[in-house]
């Protein structure tokens, strides 16, 4: 196995691990706050559950990037393509936006969602606004996802050209 493939796989691993770790911490953090509200008022379960789910999306995005990368470089099909170290590093760099932004945005989205849980606790009728505040952070995870996908497809196109 070449260095190129190794760098590319490392990028995919980082994207999945960064997004996944951020989401795991984030979902757990919001879960604690949500449990606090449900302890006092079980009828708010549905509203706090939506807030708890929000920081979980970065984990999915990270998984998606890793999956696409493994498909692009042929690892998923069992016949990896030959990559130079430079090409491998390009794939690695393409994965970094999702790895870094996925991790950071999941944590900050969790903090916003925990604040949202406090809104639901005191003013359940305003839960929509609480969701919007937390969802705003998602924008940057989506942008990072798009950049990682675009970069990856363009690298593949250049390699195949």
């Amino acid at each position: 196995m070449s260095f190129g493939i190794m760098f590319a796989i490392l990028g995919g691993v980082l994207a999945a691990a960064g997004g996944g770790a951020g989401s795991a911490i984030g979902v757990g953090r919001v879960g604690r706050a949500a449990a606090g509200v449900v302890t006092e008022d079980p009828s708010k379960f549905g509203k706090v559950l939506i807030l708890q789910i929000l920081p979980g999306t970065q984990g999915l995005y990270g998984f998606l990037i890793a999956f696409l990368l493994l498909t692009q470089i042929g690892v998923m099909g069992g016949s990896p393509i030959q990559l130079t170290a430079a090409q491998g590093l390009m794939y690695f760099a393409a994965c970094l936006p999702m790895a870094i932004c996925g991790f950071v945005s999941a944590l900050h989205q969790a903090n916003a969602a925990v604040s949202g849980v406090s809104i639901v606790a005191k003013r359940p009728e305003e839960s929509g606004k609480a969701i919007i505040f937390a969802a705003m952070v998602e924008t940057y995870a989506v942008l990072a996802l798009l950049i990682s996908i675009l970069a990856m497809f363009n690298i593949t196109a250049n390699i195949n050209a």
Partner: protein
Amino acid sequence: MRETEYAYAIARIRANELKMLGAQDLERLISAESYDAAVRILTDKGWAQPDANSAYDICEAELESAWQFISESVPDRSLLEAVIIGNDFANLKAAIKAKFSNHPLESYMTVPCVCPVEKIIKAVDEGEFADLPDYLKDCAYEAYHAYTEKQSGQLTEIIIDKACAAYKLSCADKAQSSLLKEIHTLTAAVSDIKTARRCVSTGKTKQFALDAVSGSGKLDSSALVNAAYDNKGLAEAVKAPGLEELAEYADGDFTLLEMYCDNLITKKAKEYKHEVFGPDAAVAYYYGKLAEIKNVRIILSAKASGVPDSVISQRVRELYV
């Protein structure tokens, strides 16, 4: 301890804040026809049923349940014991005084507390303090001997108050709660002002006053005592950073000084009302409950003794919610 570990406790607190008495509830209590009517309003709001018409039973039950609620919600209750640790020192003071004055002890003991009341009573009865927690042991021994050997109730109080102020500040540091530190610094400063003025009015020596003030607040102890003994007024000596407003009340009525202190604590607690992580929100809630309970005590006592509504309105403290 990570601040995010408080997320569960704070979410529970936010949900519980809805049950706290608001300005409208307070108005209803003040304008209630009688003591019984006021108690009915409280029981409708979920407060405990009174025991033999004693206002203090309701308030104590409410305060105990507030502490119970906080202690079962926070990740480490020992860190937040700093909010109730003062009651242990108050109980020690009560136990020593009651032993030598033959007063019924139970009515003077304060709950919630960290060290069981029975343990303190037993230690004072036997004059043996080894079983008390470390933070009480030394000051209990010193205060007990001050009472038995010098027959000085005031010296006993001073020894306990000083130990209490110093320990409260160390607890606030341990809990990493900036709110608790601010509150304990403020209460230590107010306590020092009262001590200095009391020493002057009871004819104690300046040295006695210097030993008596805790020095745990932001105030310069010697400047404070000198100002009190030189009859220059305390306003100048009290102008420490963050306590500027205190100077206005330092030379006035003790009731107004206490009211200012209570209101300032509630104001500081309100600043942490929207925190979602860390111990400060739990501390703020407890002090919010204290303010609420103090108001209920004021109102119920006034209702029981027929004080007019307009006078009660002037005495009530600022509310947390």
